[in-house]
């Protein structure tokens, strides 16, 4: 499944902007695990996920062509 990946902050230095997910990845929990396995530098970073501009506060299904943002801890202000 192809998704658009929007990595922010320090995750932008680790992740690509589009990704082809293996079939078994169907939700945000699966995506987190897949990303950490594939990009070990991500292990050191806490991050939240937003799917199509909605923060995934619990495990959320990801559909084809979803826009998935990777959000490390905010530090504005």
């Amino acid at each position, binding site marked *: 499944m192809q998704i658009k990946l*929007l990595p*922010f*902050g*320090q995750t*932008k*230095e680790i992740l690509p902007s589009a990704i082809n997910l293996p079939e078994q990845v169907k939700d945000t929990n699966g995506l987190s695990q897949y990303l950490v396995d594939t990009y070990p530098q991500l292990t050191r970073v806490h991050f939240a996920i*937003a799917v199509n*501009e909605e923060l995934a506060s619990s495990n959320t299904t990801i559909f084809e062509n979803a826009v998935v*943002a990777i*959000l*490390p*801890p*905010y*530090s*504005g*202000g």
Partner: protein
Amino acid sequence: MIQAENNYKNIFYEGPIDPGFIALIIRKHQKQREIGAHSLFLGQVRADKIADQVVAAIEFSSYEHLALKIMSQIREEIIQKFGLSCLHVYHSTGRVAAAEICLFVFAASAHRNAAVNACSETVEEVKNKLPIWGKEWTDCNYFRWKKQNNPTSESGLLMATE
């Protein structure tokens, strides 16, 4: 809540926020005769020490569209909760040098307590809930990713590769 995407009020300001812009916002409220109090907060980039270097600038980036959407909700809640006349928020994007302003919150109300408490609560919400990231650059061109309460002892500096 149905709202056209491009209806969100912009909060982003390219580079450091100019004091003249702050004056302009204040002046705009000089016709509102029901206002009795303005509370303003300005966040300024501090030349914090990191190991033997100092922060020379912060480079801000944001998930802008999501930030505007979240800010729009925060704004509505706070205006209603405190009965404000006005609430304005501006946050820098891009590079802001030490001693320059990167955040400007403005709350206006008939009464002092409402303005002051609303302003403080808005600053808190902006820091905690808006998807904005700061990359701290030192005077030696090293960087680290800002944390909300970065301990000055912990270095974690990285060499610039970009």
